[in-house]
């Protein structure tokens, strides 16, 4: 017991010394950076480095990230020294940079394949890699010849397998490798149910509207729908109608109205536009969400209970309860 206060005091002593060590490190690194940057800036001013052809996408990304980090450091410095950051230009510029970096993400996604391929060839460039299935390192088009080569290889290996089966040694066939996921194992029934419910809820109208709201992609909505509107309402019929529309437009034919559709039209429904009341079964699909929310709120519920108990016991002990 006597040791613990000493231990805590030493730990608190250690912390400022650690901090000072880190600060010294930072200082030395900053001076090093300065000395390295000076010649580059000099070269730029002398006109050795050309920027007339514009800057490449990845370079822009690096520059933006470096700027973002420096501004973050400045922001932290301001906060530590207790100065107010309201209406400080740093905040605006941080937000700007963040927005630009976010906008660069989808473009980067599109370039991902090319960049990965180039990096791979750069890393393994010196090693003499046997050209697997006509893989040209600088070709980015999809290569159907790749598929052919694999088929041939498989055939050869099947033959080999047979031969060696005859000789008595079993060689497993060399197929494409698949990731072995240890954690999956045997899914419990409960987990499977949960997943199924979650998938169903993701298909409900409410969630789909939410997803469309938050999605970056532009939304295409046809105000008057397709030619076959009015024939049926509700989720399933919407999908069927969409399929029918697509088929008709792609194959330049007009499909006849089937007997079932005719019966549905003749029945009291007639042809009419969909109303919101037709989709009131949407709550059926949201069953899964309810459970997820309950799970997530359990932790918070316990915290609240504990707090309440503590406060009640404290109040009972020390203060008088006024009525």
């Amino acid at each position, binding site marked *: 017991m006597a040791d613990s206060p000493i231990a805590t005091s030493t730990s608190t002593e250690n912390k400022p010394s650690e901090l000072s060590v880190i600060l010294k490190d930072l200082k030395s690194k900053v001076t090093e950076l300065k000395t390295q940057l000076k010649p580059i800036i000099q070269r730029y001013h002398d006109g050795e480095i050309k920027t007339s052809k514009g800057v490449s996408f990845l370079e822009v990304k690096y520059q933006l990230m470096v700027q973002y980090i420096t501004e973050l450091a400045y922001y932290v410095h301001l906060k530590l020294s207790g100065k107010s950051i309201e209406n400080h230009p740093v905040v605006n510029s941080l937000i700007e940079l963040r927005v630009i970096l976010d906008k660069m993400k989808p473009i980067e996604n599109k370039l991902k394949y090319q960049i990965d391929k180039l990096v791979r060839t750069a890393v393994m460039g010196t090693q003499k890699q046997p050209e697997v299935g006509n893989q040209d390192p600088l070709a980015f088009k999809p290569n159907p010849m790749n598929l052919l080569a694999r088929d041939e290889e498989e055939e050869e290996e099947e033959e080999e397998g047979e031969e060696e089966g005859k000789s008595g040694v079993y060689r497993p066939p060399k197929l494409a490798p698949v990731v072995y996921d240890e954690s999956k194992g045997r899914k419990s029934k409960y987990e499977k149910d949960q997943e199924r419910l979650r998938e169903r809820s993701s298909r409900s109208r409410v969630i789909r509207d939410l997803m469309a709201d938050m999605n970056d992609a532009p939304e295409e909505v046809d105000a*008057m729908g397709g*030619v076959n509107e009015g024939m049926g309402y509700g989720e399933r019929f919407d999908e069927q109608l969409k399929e029918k529309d697509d088929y008709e*437009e792609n194959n*330049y034919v*007009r499909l006849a109205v089937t007997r079932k559709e005719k019966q549905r039209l003749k029945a009291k429904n007639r042809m009419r536009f969909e109303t919101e009341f037709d989709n009131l079964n949407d709550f059926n699909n949201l069953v899964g969400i309810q459970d997820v929310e309950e799970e997530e709120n359990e932790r918070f519920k316990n915290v609240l209970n504990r707090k309440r108990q503590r406060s009640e016991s404290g109040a009972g002990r020390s203060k008088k309860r006024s009525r």
Partner: protein
Amino acid sequence: MGDSDEKQKKDREIESEDVDEIDGKRMDGWADAATVTIRTRKFLTNRLLQRKQMVVDVIHPGRATVAKEELREKLAKMYKANKEVVSVFGFKTHFGGGKTTGFALIYDSAESLKKFEPKHRLVRIGLAEAPKGGRKQRKEKKNRAKKLRGTKKAKAAAGKK
């Protein structure tokens, strides 16, 4: 994708005597006093059949479905082709009116149209004649021709005529 707007001017003004009221609806003779907008989608150049094919959206608020002849003319103007090489079909009006969707094929030349277009559409444009005689007669004729071979078929057909 091209748009073509057409405004047809009213050629007379309303005067109270001219307007008839039937069941509270006005019956005045301006059937065409509305704009017709044509939009094309899914445009595809089909070299194998020597034509361009597209899905046509016609927007005609306040007006009944536009006639095929009129659409042929408008499309020919849009795509700078002759009216003879344009073939339209499959027009269906959306529920509630005002919008119609159909298909259009614009051939490279009149010969390719005659060659590739199915018979019933050629009949609609007037470039071919529908086979005469009822369905029964046509089928009987075909069955009779089945018994012959080669030039005798042609002779039999000519003889009947």
